[in-house]
């Protein structure tokens, strides 16, 4: 037992609570290249060094320095230690004073004191760096290899995202349920490779069979995104201009101070690098006039080679990729230009471009690659009519121009193969009181680009080309309520189908469906089928499923022209359906199914989605609270050549047999399972009954068999009853 306090061993407590002193030498800097002087000049030298340092914004005092001295020679050793208050200041001093020319002969070299030690003790033998194991990346298009050929869709509901497979009823299942942090909405890339989510801090891309994170783009508070058609680039937009805060990470993937104030950014998807930023605010524009934001603000050429933006009234600026430099260093100056559209590439164009690219690599490029085309329009200005121009790019030659009069508005609609361009021209009468519509249709594939005009008396509210087809559908209306929508007002519309008459080379109406409420046209991506929908109405929500080739076979239509007498006769209504409160209508990429959804972003009544087949039969209907978004996953272009596709179409019967057999087998396995289940149920029942009967027989046997006898003595008595109801005697007089 210790007698006094001193006897107690406090060492453990001291060890526990001992204060750790800052023993690091990180705040010490070694300055090399100091002039070698003798004692007398020391003071003067230190003062001079301090002055030099403070000139570059680093304040040191002579007290903080330590000059090692060679006593034998009576001179200093030519270097100096400086203590700073902390490591940061030391770093700042190194950044400022390293390689500083003190005088003609002496240049300062600054280093951390610790570094000197570290480099002195460095292992001089070369150690080979370990090579990282190569892990193959997941195939981003793995979903296309689904053995059942199913499509996928994503649904976003509440805070929950689900990705589903969709096929035959037995094949529909959940593909993935990601746990993503809160985001604004989801979007597929145009070929379906990635799915993008918009977070507070930027955009994230996900993909591959395990839905791993693929890429991110740090654009804070991003609101809108747009992929380039070949998925090489991404455009993002935020309301707030870009601000680069102090200490923000630097690098090719981040905004630099030059980008401040802009709010559109272009990114390279594969590398994640920022390519360029733009501002949506046009210089010298009256800020009080708020323009509606046009989205996409940047329009991509279909081959991802150019991206263009319009400065309304002034010019179209085309940028080359991947450098994002202005093409030929100058914009297309077009007085008064309002809008433009790139001409899409047809499948054939793409094939040729691919061929040319491979040939080009071999050094003998065959045919010339067709140039990109774009169409733009300018409104009427004094003494000059409105004008639609078809321009070839990058040669910048004008291919065709058409003058238009009394134009109040134009809209450009390209057919998805770039075969036709329809300019929907809203024209006003001389009095400017009523508006009617002309459709100016350019046949782009023909020589000299002939233009056909379809004159209509009504206002056209929606226009849609049949994909890969020669037909289009329009929604027109002469309803007086058009233009002043109000609650409970349903606008009456007419829907018309037109087709190119190859004999006369003009577009003739196939059929007009009058007195509808439909306001949206949705062509199947494969053509032929079209759905007319009434969306955004509180009282009507009809869907009509039409087939435009009900009578004639698919092949017929493509090869020859339709005979005169059945012009328009093959249009057939396949079915009608109703989805209350529908806000979005979308075909799946195969054109077999249609999805309709009622999103909580628009209203809160009966949110949910439904999937229909092309005939209008309901397959799935889910009413879900807080349902927001339904999106089919797009598919890339087929890899099969035209010939291969033709071959498949020819042998369709053989292919379908395989599928039918599969269906048969599937239903059989279901049946055998069901049959076995039933068999078991029957066996159980019969066993129970047999047991009951046996017990019963034993019981009655005890009570006596006399009752049984009674059952057997069944007597059949047949009784004939003749009943005389009335007897009348009549005398017949001859």
């Amino acid at each position, binding site marked *: 037992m210790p007698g006094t306090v001193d006897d107690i061993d406090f060492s453990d407590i001291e060890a526990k609570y001992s204060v750790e002193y800052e023993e690091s030498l990180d705040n010490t800097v070694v300055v090399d290249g100091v002039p070698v002087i003798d004692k007398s000049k020391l003071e003067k030298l230190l003062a001079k060094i301090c002055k030099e340092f403070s000139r570059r914004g680093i304040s040191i005092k002579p007290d903080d320095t330590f000059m090692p001295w060679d006593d034998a020679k009576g001179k200093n050793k030519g270097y100096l230690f400086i203590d700073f208050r902390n490591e940061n200041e030391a770093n700042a001093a190194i950044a400022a004073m390293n390689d500083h020319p003190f005088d003609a002969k002496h240049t300062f070299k600054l280093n951390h004191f610790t570094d000197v030690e570290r480099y002195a003790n460095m292992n001089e033998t070369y150690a080979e760096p370990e090579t990282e194991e190569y892990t193959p990346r997941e195939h981003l298009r793995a979903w296309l290899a689904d053995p059942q050929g199913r499509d996928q869709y994503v649904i976003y509901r509440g805070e929950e995202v689900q990705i589903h497979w969709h096929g035959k009823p037995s094949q529909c299942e959940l593909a993935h349920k990601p746990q993503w942090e809160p985001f604004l909405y989801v979007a597929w890339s145009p070929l379906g490779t990635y799915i993008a989510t918009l977070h507070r801090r930027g955009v994230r891309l996900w993909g591959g069979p395990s839905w791993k994170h693929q890429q991110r783009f740090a654009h804070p508070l991003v609101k809108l995104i747009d992929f380039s058609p070949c998925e090489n680039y991404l455009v993002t937009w935020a309301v707030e201009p870009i601000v680069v805060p102090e200490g923000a990470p630097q690098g090719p993937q981040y905004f630099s101070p030059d980008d401040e104030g802009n709010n559109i950014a272009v990114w390279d998807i594969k590398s994640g690098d920022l390519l360029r930023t733009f501002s949506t605010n046009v210089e010298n524009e009256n800020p009080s006039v708020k323009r509606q934001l046009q989205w996409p603000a940047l329009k991509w050429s279909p081959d991802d080679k150019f991206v263009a933006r319009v400065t309304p009234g002034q010019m179209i600026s085309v940028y080359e990729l991947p450098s994002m430099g202005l093409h030929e260093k100058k914009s297309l100056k077009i007085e008064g230009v309002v809008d433009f559209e790139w001409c899409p590439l047809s499948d054939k164009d793409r094939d040729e471009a691919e061929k040319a690219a491979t040939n080009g690599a071999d050094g003998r490029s065959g045919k010339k690659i067709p140039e990109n085309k774009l169409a733009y329009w300018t409104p009427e200005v004094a003494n000059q009519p409105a004008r639609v121009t078809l321009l070839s790019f990058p040669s910048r030659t004008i291919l065709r121009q058409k003058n238009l009069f009394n134009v109040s508005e134009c809209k450009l609609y390209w057919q998805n193969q770039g075969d036709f361009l329809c300019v929907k021209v809203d024209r006003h009468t001389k009095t400017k009181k009523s508006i009617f519509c002309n459709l100016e249709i350019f046949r782009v594939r023909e020589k000299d680009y002939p233009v056909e005009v379809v004159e209509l008396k009504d206002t056209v509210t929606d226009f849609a080309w049949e994909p890969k087809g020669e037909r289009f559908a329009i929604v027109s209306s002469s309803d007086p309520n058009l233009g002043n929508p109000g609650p409970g007002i349903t606008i009456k519309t007419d829907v018309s189908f037109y087709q190119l008459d190859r004999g006369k080379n003009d577009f003739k109406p196939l059929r007009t469906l009058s007195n509808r409420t439909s306001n949206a046209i949705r062509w199947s991506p494969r053509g032929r089928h079209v759905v007319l929908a009434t969306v955004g109405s509180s009282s009507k929500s009809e869907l009509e499923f039409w087939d435009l080739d009900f009578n004639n076979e698919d092949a017929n239509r493509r090869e020859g022209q339709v005979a005169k007498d059945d012009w328009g006769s093959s249009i057939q209504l396949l079915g009608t359906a109703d989805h209350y409160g529908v806000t979005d209508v979308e075909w799946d990429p195969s054109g077999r199914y249609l999805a309709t959804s009622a999103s909580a972003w628009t209203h809160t009544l009966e949110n949910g989605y439904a999937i229909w087949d092309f005939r209008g039969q309901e397959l799935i209907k889910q009413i879900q609270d807080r349902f927001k978004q339904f999106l089919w996953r797009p598919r890339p272009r087929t890899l099969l050549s035209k010939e291969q596709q033709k071959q498949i179409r020819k042998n369709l019967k053989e292919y379908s047999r395989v599928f039918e057999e599969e269906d048969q087998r599937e239903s059989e396995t279901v049946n055998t399972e069901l*049959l076995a289940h*039933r*068999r078991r*149920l*029957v066996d159980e*029942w*019969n066993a*129970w*009954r*047999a047991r*009951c*009967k046996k*017990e*019963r027989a034993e*019981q009655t046997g005890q009570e006596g068999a006399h009752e049984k006898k009674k059952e057997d003595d069944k007597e059949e008595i047949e009784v004939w009853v003749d009943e005389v109801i009335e007897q009348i005697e009549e005398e017949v007089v001859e």
Partner: protein
Amino acid sequence: MRPILLQGHERSLTQIKFNREGDLLFSCSKDHVMNVWYTHNGERLGTYDANNGTVWTVDVDSESQFMVSGAADNTLRLWNVATGKCLFTWEFPTAVKRVAFSEDDKQVVCITEQRMGHQCAIRVFNINRSGDGTKQSKEPVHMFNPIGSKATVCAFTAQPNIIVTGHESGKVALFNVKTGEEIDNNERAHSDVVTDLQLSPDKTYCITSSKDKSARIHDTKTLMVIKTFTTETPLNSAALAPNRPYVLLGGGQEAMNVTTTSLRQGKFETRFWHKVFEEEVGRVKGHFGPINTIAVHPKGTCYASGGEDGFVRVHHFDDSYFKTELYGDLQIED
């Protein structure tokens, strides 16, 4: 399957019953009278008229000689089937809700209502079958009050002196009438009042229907639930179809709820369910009110349903009913 419409009652039907041969159909209703009909053509043979209140229940013995009825005028009456004469009347403090003959026709069990301070009681009377049947003892041979929830339906089982009862709470129980002792019970057979209980021809199993929208087949010895049929409407009656593996369920929304609930019609159909697979196989429409009672011909050739609308519809089954093997060729014991 063209039904024969029996329009002999002015108010809703409470129970219908075939005799053992199935040539006669007895019906009782809230309009105080009972009718007997020829099954094959729907001709009315006669009425039994003496009760002074809703006739809740009826049963006929196996020889079609005597019939008993229970009514809201607190009486249990014995009738001569052939003459329509009331042979004997027992009086109780409360209404009679259910009567049933024993297998040997020598006993009758009856349930009286729990009301006005009187407990629900189950009484068994010996029936003196000798003579013209007017000489009956006034006192029951056995009487007891089931403890707990009141009994709503009952029937004699195959075992002597044991009855099976259905209760308001949804309980199904076995009682020894001699001692009044509850031999066995299944408290959770149903979750709402048991509305009907019908025995199989050999009395080894029974089917119960309930307001909980389901019907169940029970083993009458162990009270084990063998099958469950779940519908979307409260059920008032369930019957077993002899010789065919079906059960018939009838019900519908309560008349008082028809206007306040769904826009769709009140589901007043007779539902045919497969007895073993527990799947619905068909429906027969016709009544425009809930179906209160269903009875099937003992040979399974026809069935009758009585509804809240006051009609009895007798359906003779088509040939296809007997020939169609819905689930393929399976031998299912009756």
